[in-house]
């Protein structure tokens, strides 16, 4: 694996303006993806995974405010890109698969209409060539009868097929980075495995950079090189997937991994006490401290610095300082 950095998020702070005030969601996110690398992001719902991913393409909701931080794509700051540079990034470099294929496809347009628009604006092709490209992508996404899918409205397709359509969109052209934001969360169990296998084999085959955001810890473990653990707007632990899963360091990661139900287990995990903090008034210091069993005095005062505990395996926790 080459060590050329493709994407680097540095100290990203993002909040949302609402009528109740400003919620401080991302609290200094750092994340790096190398060329052709497969990176996993795990963490419970509401920890800011989607916000981080949407920041990369600058498609955050209109009430979001990026307060601080930088997102470098091949050395260029995405947050300072001009309109045409940004469009080029969206059209040719990075693609994204959304969490819920039903809400991600406009219900009033045929799959083909959406695909043609995307291809036409990205590659300035004639209708026929564009259609060929779209059909090729649909075929790659293992959709039976691509012609029919092309000519269907999203409501005429099943959930699994809709997500395959979204995968097909992400495959158009030769991307350098594919962001998959919980691509299987909203699918039936039976379809989950199919879609996941398709996606992972395509990523492997194309040797493309991949950010895989998921709650399915087993799938993340098997399919990524490195993994980031996110909690309440912070990356609290990261490292090679093997190391993080076999030797979780952060108390949150340990609890999170314990929560995975095992078929052989006799009882359910107790879960993690408490809940994700209120982002309007997040806890001081380490945001996990109100839920942590090993909380120290200093945890309440300042955000812990990341420490490299073993080779390339980092954790942001005061238990590992020194």
């Amino acid at each position: 694996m080459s060590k050329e950095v493709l994407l680097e998020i540095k100290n990203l702070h993002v909040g949302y303006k609402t009528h109740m005030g400003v919620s401080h969601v991302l609290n200094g996110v750092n994340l790096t993806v190398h060329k052709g690398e497969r990176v996993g992001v795990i963490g419970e719902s509401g920890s800011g995974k989607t916000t981080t991913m949407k920041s990369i393409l600058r498609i955050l909701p209109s009430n979001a405010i990026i307060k601080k931080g930088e997102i470098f794509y091949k050395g260029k700051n995405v947050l300072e890109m001009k309109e045409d540079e940004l469009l080029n990034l969206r059209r040719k470099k990075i693609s994204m698969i959304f969490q819920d294929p039903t809400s991600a496809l406009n219900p009033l347009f045929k799959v083909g209409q959406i695909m043609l628009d995307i291809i036409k604006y990205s590659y300035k092709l004639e209708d026929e060539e564009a259609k060929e490209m779209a059909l090729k992508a649909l075929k790659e996404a293992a959709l039976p009868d691509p012609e029919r899918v092309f000519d269907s409205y999203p409501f005429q397709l099943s959930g699994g097929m809709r997500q395959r359509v979204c995968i097909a969109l992400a495959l158009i052209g030769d991307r350098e980075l594919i962001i998959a934001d919980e691509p299987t969360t909203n699918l039936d169990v039976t379809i989950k495995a199919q879609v996941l296998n398709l996606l992972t084999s395509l990523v492997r085959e194309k040797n493309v950079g991949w950010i895989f955001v998921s709650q399915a810890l087993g799938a993340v473990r098997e399919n990524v090189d490195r993994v980031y653990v996110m909690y309440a707007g912070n990356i609290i632990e990261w490292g090679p997937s093997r190391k993080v899963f076999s030797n979780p360091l952060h108390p949150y990661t340990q609890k999170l991994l314990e929560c995975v139900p095992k078929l052989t287990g006799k009882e359910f995990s107790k879960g993690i006490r408490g809940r994700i903090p209120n982002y309007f008034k997040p806890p001081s210091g380490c945001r996990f401290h109100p839920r942590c069993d090993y909380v120290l005095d200093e945890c309440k005062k300042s955000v812990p610095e990341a420490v490299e505990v073993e080779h390339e395996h980092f954790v942001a926790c005061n238990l590992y300082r020194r």
Partner: protein
Amino acid sequence: MRAIWKYIWKRVLYVIPTLVGLSILIFILSRVLPGDPALMAAGPNAPKWVVEQIRHQLRLDKPLWEQYYYWLVDLFHGDLGYSTYTKRSVTADVIEYLPASLQLIFMAALFEIGGALALGIIAGRYAYRLPDNIVRVIAYIGISVPSFVWGLLFQLVFASLIPLFPTHGMYSYGTVPPPRVTGFSLIDALIAGQFDTFVDILWHMVLPAFALSLGAMAQDARIIRAGMVENTEKEHVSLVRAYGIPERVIFSKYILKPSLVPAVTVMGMDIASLLGNAFMVELIFQWPGFSRYGINVMLNKDINGIVAVVLVIGILFAIANIIVDVVVAYLDPRIGRRSQ
């Protein structure tokens, strides 16, 4: 294409029982409400035998079901009964007054659709910014001020203070009305080749049609705006944005289309209800229309006239409904296909 005709045909079939129900309801209501129609028609000083004769003529001496039966038989012969107010056939009244009103409503509908689209899209495009705030104030005033106040105001400002438009009526003094062919004076003027008259009628229609359209226009502009603001934050908009489709296209295609679906539904109903709302406006602008006729028959308890007026309004609503259904089915494929 065949599918859409089937869809329309089905809608039409659904409408028939509704209209039959409406006719029974209004027929019974018009006859059981207090006040003796025969007495009202004959006048306070009429001798008793005259009242009885009118009562007999209106079939009020027969049982209710029989009255309805004969009314229905007459209806199939194109006869809506005798009007005690105009002293002639109600059918003749409808033919005389309805086209003028429909013509006015049609123009008001054009104003309404055009204005609502323009205002709604501007407000949606510049949501929470100055243009949006201006539109919001306009919409607020448009909704809260009744159409007859607009009528009076327009007469004062645009007809009297600044004499751009005529104050009332359908023709200017000295204009010869075109020979009656369809009853729609605009069309008749064109048939007769009187282009000047055509323009003259249009000129007379501008103020009343605009006054009539404002309330509905404001309401629909607000619905379009709300839809656009809502759709802007939808995930499917994030998707097309993420794939580099220009904002201009996102707005005019992927945000606008879903925002129009709810607006079309309300627009259809608003346009249909213009006929009912037109009364004050027709009165102020002395427009020889159907709404004025409607109020007069009600005040005079002209039972056949009342039934005819309510039915015409019902039919208008039914037609508007069918048009709305077809347009919505065209915009939103989920609706048309599901019901097949």
